[in-house]
C-alpha cells in the first residue's frame, strides 16, 4: 500500500520540526494513523496537561480532512464525551491547502479560546456561559485529574 508523497512529506516535516507543544508520531503498522500529544497552552485552564489525541488520514486525504479526536478526558465546550472536536476546518471549512500541522495548531488554539456559542458538549457550554469562572475551575480540575502524564 503506497503512501502518497504528500503524507510522507508532511510526516517527515512533523518529525523534523515539530510545532511547539505538539507531538505527532505515526503508527509503525499504519502510517496514516498518528498518536498525538498536545500540551495545554499557557494561561489556559489546560496549562500543565498533556492531552493525547489520535489522528487518521482517510483514503481521500487531502481532499477530505483528517479525522481527529481526544483520547484524554477534557472539559471543553467544543469537545464531547467521546473526544470528538467541533472545529470548522475539520468539517465544511476544510481545504486541501491545510495540513496535519495546521489542524493540530488549530486544536491547540481551540484550547486557548473555547467557543461556548458553537458547542458540541451542551452541558459544558451552558456552564461556560452561565459561570465562566466556575467552568474554568472544573476544566483545571479535569486537567489535573486526567491530563498529567
Amino acid at each position, binding site marked *: 500500500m503506497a503512501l502518497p508523497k504528500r503524507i510522507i512529506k508532511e510526516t517527515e516535516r512533523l518529525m523534523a520540526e515539530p510545532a511547539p507543544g505538539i507531538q505527532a508520531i505515526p503508527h509503525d503498522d499504519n502510517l496514516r494513523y498518528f498518536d498525538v500529544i498536545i500540551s495545554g497552552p499557557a494561561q489556559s485552564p489546560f496549562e500543565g496537561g498533556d492531552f493525547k489525541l489520535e489522528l487518521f*488520514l482517510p483514503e481521500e486525504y487531502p481532499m477530505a480532512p483528517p479525522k481527529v479526536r481526544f483520547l484524554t478526558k477534557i472539559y471543553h465546550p467544543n469537545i464531547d464525551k467521546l473526544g470528538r472536536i467541533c472545529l470548522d476546518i475539520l468539517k465544511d471549512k476544510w481545504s486541501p491547502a491545510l495540513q496535519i500541522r495546521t489542524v493540530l495548531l488549530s486544536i491547540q488554539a481551540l484550547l486557548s479560546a473555547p467557543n461556548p456559542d458553537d458547542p458540541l458538549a451542551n452541558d459544558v457550554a451552558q456552564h461556560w456561559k452561565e459561570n465562566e469562572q466556575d467552568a474554568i475551575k472544573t476544566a483545571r480540575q479535569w486537567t489535573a485529574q486526567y491530563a498529567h502524564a
Partner: protein
Amino acid sequence: MAKVPRNFRLLEELEKGEKGIGDGTISYGLADGDDLMMSNWNGTIIGPGHTVHENRIYSLKITCGNDYPDRAPTVSFLSKVNLPAVNQKTGKVERLACLDSWKRSYTIETVLAELRREMANPSNKKLSQPAEGTFF
C-alpha cells in the same frame, strides 16, 4: 486502501447507528456514552413478521475488543430466544456465519441483520420460544 483504525471505525458505526438504520428493525448504540474506548454496545432486534418472533423486541449486548474490527465482536442475547446460533444457557451467539468467518468490512449492523435473518429462516421461524420478556 487506507486501513481505518478501530476507534475511527467505531465512531463511524456510532454515527450511523445514531441516525437510525433502514426501517428501524435493528438498532444499536453505545452502552455508556462516556466510554472513550467504545467497547460495550447495546443492540435491539425487532422480530420479523410472520414468524414466532413477530412483535418481540430482543435486547443484545455487543463487545468490541481492542482488536476489533480485525476480529469479530462478542455478541450475546440478553432477552431469551431459541435459535440454533444462540447458546441456550448463556445467550451467547456461538454459531453465526458472519462471526465464524469474520471480515474486516463487517460491522455491528452486519451481525444484527444476520441474526434477524436467522429468525426468519424457514427452519427457525416456527421454533417454540421462551416466554416474552424473559432474560438469560
